[in-house]
């Protein structure tokens, strides 16, 4: 099966070469058969990558320890669940997995648009195949996952060997979220290839109008959703597994995942300017280019080891390949832009400074500043070494100081932006839309201050969260009230109806609400507490309102590891509440350790209990307990963001008023010719 997988990868490489060369020939000659054959070569590339990926999984499932990658990342006792995850646990497999996910996107695009947009698709196909070709080069010639296990024998002859068992999977990766976090993050990274291919294709083809924007909107949102989910799942994994009580450490690899998310979010907002007003065409194209390049940079930072990271499980010398690819991509983008920049002429006009357009510009500015600040902070140790000879570290405290104010400004615009009108916002409209939310926000801040909250960033975050939530709820309330006046249905039903009539607008509001929840959770960090204590059975410790009593300890041998488990009883006001079971796992094959944190989570706070290990002197277990307020809101916010994105991806439901105007007489007056029937029903770009 390893030969089959290798051969499939090699054939995929050949097909990708044809898809690029044949595609370019098709663009030049405009010969329909060439167009078709290039497209089919693209599809064949995807199919062959699928076969190669399934071959590697087959090798894991059949415990084929003659393959170096399988030996390094699996063992016989590893559960089936984690044998799937072993695919992306190392360098070679994760690069193949990159190719696999990219192939899923590429095949979907090729099938979805096979008989549409004939002028544009050959260009898009060539760009997508070009990206695939780069990864297939790595898969075949640099980091092949199908290398046989061999040792050099006498006379330089390689002796192929088969091991009885493998080294096993890194214990930190043996956690359910590790099975879903990397696929989500990679789906985000790879997904941004599609808007990039359409943007570059449209620029090269001088494709008229904003159609490429409409075509890529859903793909961009899907990639963005996966990226968001990937980041949050990674944060949750760090929280639940690493046992340090936090979820985001500003590690270079974490930062790398955030960079394309920031530019992608900026693009999702600024693209509305182009759709609605034909503005910012150059900006949008470069935002998409930058997002894709940042995805590549993220992969490069993760893999190259140019900056030190705790995610050192997949480092190698493929850095120069990525640098070369990013250089070529940038050169192609720049060349295409310089050649066809007249195609991007915008209709840039504004009636007033206070308008939706201005808020989008500031929104983009803040996202870009956050992105560049994170990037320059991440690379600062490298720069400082170049300039001064000393490597100056930049850790979490720096990133927190720099990004918290920017984050708060973005949160402020989250509330303000959507309620400003396009072109010009009147003073009355400002008063009507923001009067109550500002008042409620300030009131919430006043109450918190009176209750003794003195962490000023958290206080500012709370005020803004309440303000933004109030603006969003007010929007839902007003829309629902109108529908209710006509239909008489309940407010909840009217809110659902309202959302489904303009999924993009109200899905967007739900996403904003999710971000409010995330910020609320982040604000809680200022009030974290922790206590660490060596305990004998029967000892107790106090943290906040909780008393923790170590009731018993035991050792539980499992198939792949032995778990040392603490049985900790939690009491509140001397009333028993529950038992928590934090444990420490010792993995037998690779002699490594992992923690399993026990968390009692409520919307108010998380009681987070870690069994840190055994005190070597007293031989007593050490329990480390944290009280982390509001953390659950972060995960709840993540779920809300995903839900909102899914809503925004749905097509608008047609209004009953439009479907059956005769049965439901409305108070809407006859529509003059040339005026849109109902702005609520328009293809929502709000």
């Amino acid at each position: 099966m390893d030969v089959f997988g290798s051969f499939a990868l090699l054939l995929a490489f050949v097909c990708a070469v044809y898809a690029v060369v044949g595609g370019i020939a098709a663009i030049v000659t405009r010969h329909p058969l060439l167009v078709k054959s290039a497209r089919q070569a693209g599809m064949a590339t995807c199919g062959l990558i699928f076969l190669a990926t399934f071959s590697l999984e087959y090798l894991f499932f059949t415990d084929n320890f003659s393959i170096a990658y399988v030996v390094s990342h699996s063992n016989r006792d590893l559960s089936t669940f984690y044998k799937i995850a072993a695919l992306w646990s190392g360098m070679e497999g994760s690069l193949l997995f990159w190719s696999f996910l990219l192939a899923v996107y590429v095949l979907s695009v090729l099938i979805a648009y096979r008989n549409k947009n004939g002028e544009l698709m050959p260009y898009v196909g060539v760009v997508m195949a070009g990206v695939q070709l780069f990864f297939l080069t790595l898969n075949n010639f640099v980091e092949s996952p199908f290398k046989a296990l061999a040792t050099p024998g006498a006379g330089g002859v390689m002796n192929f060997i088969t091991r009885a068992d493998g080294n096993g999977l890194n214990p930190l990766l043996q956690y359910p979220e590790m099975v879903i976090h990397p696929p989500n993050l990679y789906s985000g990274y790879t997904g941004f290839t599609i808007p990039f291919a359409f943007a570059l294709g449209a620029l090269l083809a001088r494709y008229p109008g904003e159609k490429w924007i409409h075509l890529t909107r859903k793909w961009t949102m899907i990639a963005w959703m996966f990226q968001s989910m990937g980041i949050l799942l990674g944060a949750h994994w760090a929280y639940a597994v690493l046992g340090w009580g936090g979820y985001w450490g500003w590690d270079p690899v974490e930062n790398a995942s955030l960079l394309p998310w920031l530019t992608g979010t900026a693009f999702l907002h600024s693209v509305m300017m182009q759709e609605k007003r034909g503005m910012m065409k150059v900006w949008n194209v470069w935002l998409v280019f930058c997002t894709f390049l940042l995805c590549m940079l993220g992969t490069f930072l993760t893999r190259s080891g140019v900056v030190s990271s705790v995610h050192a499980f997949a480092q190698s010398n493929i850095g120069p390949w990525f640098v070369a690819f990013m250089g070529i991509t940038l050169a192609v983008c720049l060349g295409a832009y310089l050649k066809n920049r007249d195609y991007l002429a915008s209709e840039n006009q504004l009636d007033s400074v206070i308008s939706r357009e201005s808020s989008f510009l500031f929104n983009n500015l803040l996202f870009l500043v956050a992105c560049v600040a994170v990037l320059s902070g991440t690379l600062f140790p490298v720069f400082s070494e170049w300039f001064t000879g000393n490597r100056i570290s930049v850790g979490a405290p720096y990133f927190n100081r720099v990004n918290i104010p920017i984050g708060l400004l973005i949160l402020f615009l989250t509330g303000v932006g959507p309620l400003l009108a396009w072109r010009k916002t009147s003073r009355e409209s400002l008063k009507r839309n923001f009067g109550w939310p500002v008042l409620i926000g300030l009131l919430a801040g006043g109450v918190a201050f009176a209750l003794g909250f003195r962490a000023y960033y958290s206080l500012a975050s709370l005020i803004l969260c309440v303000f933004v939530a109030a603006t969003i709820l007010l929007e839902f309330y007003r829309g629902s009230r109108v529908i209710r006046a006509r239909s008489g249905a309940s407010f909840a039903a009217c809110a659902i109806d309202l959302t489904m009539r303009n999924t993009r607008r109200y899905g967007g509001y739900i996403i904003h609400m999710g971000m409010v929840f995330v910020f609320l959770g982040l604000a809680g960090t200022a009030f974290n507490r922790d206590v660490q204590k060596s305990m004998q059975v029967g000892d107790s410790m106090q943290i906040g309102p909780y008393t923790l009593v170590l009731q018993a300890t035991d050792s539980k041998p499992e198939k792949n590891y032995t778990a040392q488990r603490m049985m900790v009883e939690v009491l509140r006001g001397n009333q028993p509440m529950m038992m928590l079971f934090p444990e420490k796992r010792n993995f037998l094959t690779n002699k490594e350790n992992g923690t399993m944190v026990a968390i009692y989570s409520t919307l108010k706070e998380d009681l987070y209990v870690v069994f840190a290990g055994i005190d070597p002197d007293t031989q007593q277990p050490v329990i480390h307990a944290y009280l982390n307020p509001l953390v659950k809101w972060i995960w709840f916010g993540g779920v809300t963001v995903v839900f909102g994105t899914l809503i925004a991806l749905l097509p608008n439901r047609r209004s009953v008023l439009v479907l059956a105007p005769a049965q439901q007489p409305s108070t809407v007056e006859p529509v003059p010719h040339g005026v849109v029937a109902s702005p609520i029903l328009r293809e929502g770009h709000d």
Partner: protein
Amino acid sequence: MASSPPPFCEKAMTRNRALRRTLVLLGMATLPLIVPVGAQQFSDRAKKIGFQLKCMCGSCSMTAAGCSHPGGEFSGPCPTAKGMLQEADQHVAKGETDEQIVQAFAQEFGTTVYAEPPKSGFSLVAWAMPTVYLVLGALVVIFVISRWVKKNASETTASAVPAPPIAPELLERARKLAERATED
């Protein structure tokens, strides 16, 4: 450290520094043999300073006070981090200021010990960059917006050709409809 070494001693100084650093790390690694790992408590000030210092164990990128050493036998401050916190406590006992203590660590380990760049010398660049980006970006945005507004104003006055007349009642009806729809 009191006097600056002559240039030809640079290599020897680096070697001495590396040796001293190794000895310090070795000393810290042996600390758990003397001090119980889990039981040791540090002063709040040492913890506060520990958040400004990176754990120098080499296998985690956490701060000395926040080190939990994932994957290690003990999930909590690792021996190196504990040694650093203990050393911080010793400096505290001598009555040194936070800044002096951080500087003492920087002399021992070099600039990699900082959890955040110091606000002096080349490191100031790191602190200045985000503000510079924000200010420059804001200026660009303000310039762009004002240009767009001006452009619109000039185009409005320049368009001398009158638009085809629209019946006032039709216009009023459209305005009412738009107001109602956009208001709610």
